[in-house]
C-alpha cells in the first residue's frame, strides 16, 4: 500500500493520539504526521499553510468533542476554506449518538464517519478510501 504523504490528527485525547500514531508509523501508512489538540489550532495552521504556501495534509482525522473549537465548529470554518478540495476529512468519535452520524452527513466535506476504537484495519481502509477519492478528483 502506498503511504499518504501527510496526515493530521485533531483530537484532545492523548491516548487515542498515541495509539493512532503508533499504528500508522508501524504500518507505514503516512510519511508525515502532525497532531493538534483542538480545532482552533488546526484551523490556524491551515490558514498559516495557505499563506506560507506550505503543504496541506492529504487527510485529517477529526474528533468531535474538543475544547475551544470542536469538530463541528472546525467543519463550519473549513467549509469556507479556499483549498478545502485538496484535503480529505474523516470524522472520528466515540459517540454512537445517531444524531452525530446524521449530522456528519450534512457536511459534504466529510468523507466518512468512523466510530472509535480505531483498529489498524480501519486505518488501512481509510488510507485506501482517501487515495481512490484523490485519484477521482
Amino acid at each position, binding site marked *: 500500500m502506498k503511504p499518504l504523504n501527510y496526515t493530521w490528527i485533531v483530537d484532545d*485525547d*492523548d*491516548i*487515542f493520539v*498515541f*495509539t493512532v500514531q*503508533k*499504528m500508522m508509523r*508501524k504500518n507505514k501508512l503516512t510519511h508525515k504526521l502532525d497532531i493538534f*489538540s*483542538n480545532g*482552533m489550532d488546526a484551523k490556524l495552521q491551515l490558514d498559516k499553510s495557505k499563506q506560507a504556501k506550505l503543504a496541506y495534509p492529504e487527510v485529517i482525522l477529526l474528533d468531535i*468533542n474538543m*475544547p*475551544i*473549537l*470542536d469538530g463541528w*465548529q472546525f467543519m463550519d470554518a473549513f467549509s469556507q476554506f479556499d483549498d478545502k478540495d485538496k484535503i480529505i476529512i474523516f470524522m472520528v*468519535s*466515540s*459517540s*454512537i*449518538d445517531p*444524531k452525530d452520524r446524521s449530522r456528519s452527513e450534512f457536511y459534504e466535506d466529510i468523507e466518512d464517519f468512523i466510530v*472509535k*476504537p*480505531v*483498529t489498524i484495519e480501519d486505518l488501512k481502509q481509510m488510507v485506501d478510501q482517501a487515495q481512490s477519492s484523490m485519484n477521482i478528483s
Partner: protein
Amino acid sequence: MGKNLNFTAIKQAPVAIAYLDRDLNYIAHSAKWCEDYNLKETDLKGRNHYEVFPEISQEWRDKHQRILRTGVAESNPAQLFVRKDGTEQWLKWTVSPIISESEEIFGLIFSTEDITETMAYKQKMNREHQLLMDATNKAKIGTWEYNFETNELFWSSVTKQLHEVDENYVPDVANGIEFYKEGESRDTVTALFNKCQITGGPYEAELQIVTATGKERWVRSTLKGDIVDGDCLRQYGTFEDITEKIEADIAYKLALSKFQDVFIASGVGMLVLDPFDLKIKQANPKICELLDLDPVSVASTTLEMLISKNEFSGFYDLVQQLLNKNINRLEIDAKLKKSDGKFISCSIVGSLIEDALGNPVSIVVQAIDLTEIKKKEKELKSFTRYVEQQNDRLMNFAHIVSHNLRSHSSNFEVLLHLYDQETSEDDKENIIKLLNSSSRQLSETIGHLNEVVTVNSNKIELISIGLKENILRVMDNITSQIKENDVDINLDIADDFTVDASPAYLESVFLNLLTNSIKYRKENEPVIIEISAYRHKGKSKILFQDNGIGIDLELHGHKIFGMYKTFHGNKDAKGIGLYITKNQIEAMGGSINVESQVNIGTRFKITL
C-alpha cells in the same frame, strides 16, 4: 165575464198579467205586461196574442189549446226564451184557464215574471260554489251542510274522504256526530251544534274523530248557522284534517316538558334566550349557581350584561349566523360575568329552537365552566414540559455516558492490542503507563457521572437559607485560593435575604462559579467578583459577575452548560462544573443563564 173583472186593478197590477178569450184575443192586461215584453202599444185590448207575438211557436199554440180543452193550468218556474232580436229572457210563467161559475172555460190567464236577472245571479252563485268546492277539495278542506227543513245532511267528497266513507255514503246528523270520538270530542261537537242552532255561531273546535276504518284523526270543525226569524234554517261549516299539526304540537309539548326537566336538573349552566334581543327568558339553577345570579331578577336582563364586552360582538355575530342558518350550532369560548364582577372562562354552545313553521322561538345556550379544565390543562402542560425536559436530560445523559465510557474502553482495547504486538520492553512499559492513566480517567469519569446521577435522581428538600451566610461559608473553604489569586469579592446582599434551596447544592453552585472565575481570570489583573440578589415576581434573582477572560458565546453559547465541554484549552478544565451547576439549580426548580463578553467578563443570572 167582463163585469167580473176589475180592469183598473188589473192594469195597475205589479206583475205581468194578461186575460185572453178562447180565441187568444186580449181582454185585459197589466201595464207591466207591455213593459216586460218591450211593446210599443200600451193597450192591447181586442188584439190577438199571436198577432202581437208572431214568433210564438206551434208548441205554445198547442199548449194554449190543450189548457182550453182540459182546464189544467201549466207553469214553469224558469224557462229561457229567445226573442226576435236574439235577446235571452228567463221567464217564470203560468198559464191558467179562466173558468166561469158554470164551469165553462172561456179564456186564459197569462202570468209571467221576468227572472233573467235572478237567473244570472244564480248562475254566478253556482259558478262560485263550484270554484269553492274545487278549492276546498284541493286544500283538503271538507264542507258540510245540514238543512233543518229537509233534515238532510250534506257532506262534500273531502269530508267523506276524511271520514273514510265512500262517495255514495249518505250521512245523517245522528251518525255524523257518532263519528266524533266518544267523550270530550263528541260532547263538544254536540254542544256546539246545539248552541249554533240558537245563536248562529260561528264556532270552531279541534276535535278527534274515529273514521269508518277505525283510525283516529284530528280535525278542525267550523260551524255557522242561518237564523231566520229565530229559526235555524241550516247549519254549515268546514272540516279540516289537522292530525299532522296536532301530533307535531303534542310531540313539541312533550319535548318541551322533557327539556324543562333536563333544564332544571342539568349539571351544565343553561339559558333560554330570545333569539332577537337576547333577553334572558329562563335561567336554570346551575347557571344561577355558577354566576351567582338571582333566578328571578335575571329574567329581566339580557345576555349582553353577562358576557364580557369585547366578546359580545363575536357572540352576536354567531347568533346572526345561527338565525340565517349559516351555522347549525354556535360555539365560542367567552368569559361570563359573575354578580361580584369577576369573570369566569366558559365554553358556550347554543342552538336555535324553532316552532313547527320554522320560525325562531328561542336560543338555548349552555355554558360550561372552564376554570377547572383550564387549571388542569395548565398543570398538565407544565407536567408534560417537566417530563419532556427530564426525558431530554436523560437522553442527553445516556449519550454522554456512552460516549465517555466508550472513549476509555476503546483506548483500553487499542492499547492492549498494541501491547501484544510490541516487542520492545521500553515501549511496553510506556503502554502500561498509558493504561494506568486511562484507568484513572475512567474512574474519574465514573465519579462525575455518579455525581450527575445523584443530582438528578435524589429528591431534595428545599429550605429557606440565608444567601449571604451560604456564600460566606463557601468563601471560607477557599480562603487560600482567594488570597493567593488576589480576589476581591463584593456581596451586595441584605443580611436577611433568603432563598428556598438545598444548602449543599447552593454551596456547590457558588463553589463552582467562584473557582471558575478564579481559573479563567485575566492575567496580571486582580479578580473582581460581584454578587447581588433581589426579588422579582416572587422569585429570587441572584447575579454573579466577574471580570475574567469571558467566553465567546456566539461560538460556544449553545454548549456552555453541556457536559465535558471545555472552551479554553485549559489543562485542568474538565467540562463538568457548569454541567453539574445547571443540574443542581434545575433540581432545585430554578434556572441559570449566562451573558459574557470576551476579555470583559462573565455574568450568570440565577433564578430560584
